[in-house]
């Protein structure tokens, strides 16, 4: 087969793989509606508690920071979803015994993980989008939601979270019981989303921080993607991709270590 034909075949297989992974996720969301709606409701109720509680305590002054709160909550919701869907899912698959089947996927374990990541991030946007709508309706606020800006910034912000998710997934394969760190990192995302990157630019190198900063400016200040300084966009892309690449590399390393120790599918 020529290299052109091979590339075409690989692309075709990747599309089918993406379709299969997305379809599975969609089926499960649809088949268990109570779980799906319950999850969304829990996220919304938590926001409502913050919103109404904050207003009751702080009064109208609370509204000054409301837009930032909504954007931060939107991003953290997506981050939780992307992180949990990746790291949590690998742990679950290991428990079920389906992880070894994924490892033996003829298209390659790496591509399966890549497909799962893409689908997870896409579904995270759905969750985040639904939450955003509910938040805007509840608060009566208006934000700038330019998809050409929000989606790329969100994707690269989540990419850094995915990188962390890969590391956690690898650790889970090797050490099995990592739930405490797993939960701790989730709280860490809240802090990272609120990191003062303007005051301390070095914080831009942490996951989520630069994405959160840019998303705030885009959604509350109406800044478009092309209106950001190139340097800021470069940092966003480099940090996002850096975390994904390093995270995936660590994941593969830990997977190999798990295979050496014979614990890939054990839990």
């Amino acid at each position, binding site marked *: 087969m020529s290299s052109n034909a091979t590339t075409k*075949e690989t692309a*075709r*297989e*990747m599309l*089918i*793989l993406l*379709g*299969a*992974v997305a*379809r*599975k996720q969609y*089926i*499960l969301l649809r*088949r*268990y509606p109570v779980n799906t709606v319950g999850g969304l409701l829990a996220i919304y109720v938590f926001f409502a508690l913050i919103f109404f509680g904050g207003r009751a305590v702080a009064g109208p002054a609370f509204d000054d920071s409301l837009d930032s709160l909504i954007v931060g909550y939107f991003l953290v919701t997506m981050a939780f979803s992307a992180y949990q869907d990746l790291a949590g899912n690998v742990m679950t698959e290991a428990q*079920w*015994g*389906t992880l*070894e*089947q*994924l*490892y*033996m*996927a*003829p*298209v*390659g374990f790496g591509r*399966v993980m890549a497909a799962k990541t893409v689908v997870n991030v896409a579904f995270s946007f759905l969750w985040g989008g639904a939450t955003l709508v509910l938040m805007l309706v509840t608060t009566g606020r208006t934000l700038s939601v330019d998809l050409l800006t929000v989606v790329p910034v969100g994707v690269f912000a989540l990419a850094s979270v995915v990188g962390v998710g890969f590391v956690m997934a690898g650790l889970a394969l090797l050490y099995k019981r990592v739930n405490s760190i797993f939960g701790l990192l989730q709280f860490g995302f809240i802090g990272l989303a609120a990191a003062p990157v303007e005051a301390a630019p070095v914080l831009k190198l942490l996951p989520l921080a630069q994405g959160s900063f840019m998303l705030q400016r885009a959604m509350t200040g109406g800044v478009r993607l092309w209106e950001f300084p190139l340097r800021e966009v470069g940092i966003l892309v480099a940090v996002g991709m850096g975390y994904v690449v390093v995270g995936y590399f660590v994941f593969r390393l830990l997977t*190999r270590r798990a*295979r*050496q*120790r*014979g614990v*890939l*599918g054990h839990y």
Partner: protein
Amino acid sequence: MRSPAASNAARETIRTTRPETNHTDHDETVRSDHTDGERSNHTDGERSNHTDGERSDHAGRPETREPPVIEVSNLTKRYDEVVAVDDVSFSVEQGTILGVLGPNGAGKTTLLKAMLGLLVPTEGTVRVCGIDVHDDPERAYRRVGATLEGARNVYWRLTVRENLAFFGGLAGESARDPAVKARHDTLLDQLDLLDRGDDVVNELSRGMKQKVALACALARDVDVAFLDEPTLGLDVESSVDLRRELRRLADERGLTVVLTSHDMSVVEDLCDRVLVVNQGQVVADDGVTSLVELFRTSAVRIVVDGRLSATTEQAIRADYTVESWETDGDRTRALVALEEANDLPALSARFVEGGGRLVSVNTVEPDLTEAFLQLTGSESTTRGTR
């Protein structure tokens, strides 16, 4: 699993407990008159004890020798000081159903996982359809399906068909492709799952779930299936169904199957060839019948009325190999191995001369369980209790 230091001692133990054979071209492994990689005595004779009667020629496939579908060379897996798989080499030809037997902790699952690339071996290579599983796993996995023990292997919250579609997707196969859909239909039909195709797996019985796992492993028209304890937990009917399907797939599709099982009847009934693993090593590699024959001795169970004296018992023990001797009230039961079948009249006479009245004399037929116990150095219990 054991330490390397124990390795040689264990090897010696296994060798000495094994009767002399005239076909040990490998010093450690009991192997019949076939060369490494050839199908063992898969001759009509060996398969004559199988009821379907169609196993002798694998549906008329030509007898020409083809390259082995599986080649395992010097496979070793060490965990620190513990050797789980110890320098294992063998090969398997197309259409063969190979049973891997061994006591708990013998290294069966480790061997299977190392063959599948789920474990990184310390040494050695595994080739499936000529492809090195560790160097080029993705190509190798295109030819392989597997179900692993203790694992769900499939998604219980998806339906049977959704599982097939998902696992097909992992190979870049679209379930919308009419050819793929037709293959799924055929497979479901063969496994008697056609009318359960739209059922969520969680709602199916354990036997059905096992069949779904098998269907997913075979959904891609693979050449080799690795099945770890495929009949574990199945009721008799489901187990028989599954065996029949595997046999048919091997015969009609030329599917090569490597399975592990604790169930001797599964191995005896289904497998063309048996690999007995003990302490990480292959201690026997042969056809079922050949293994049984290897341990065939002319053993007889003699029952006499009357309590024989200790002197008589000692005298018989001195001249014969007495495997068991029980006295129950006024009845004596003995299991005695004979070197020659012609020795039976003389043996019977000794019991009568000792004051006993013959009630029955039965020849004891060996089976795979007996062969397995002897090969793994376990205490033989089957003859003693039958």
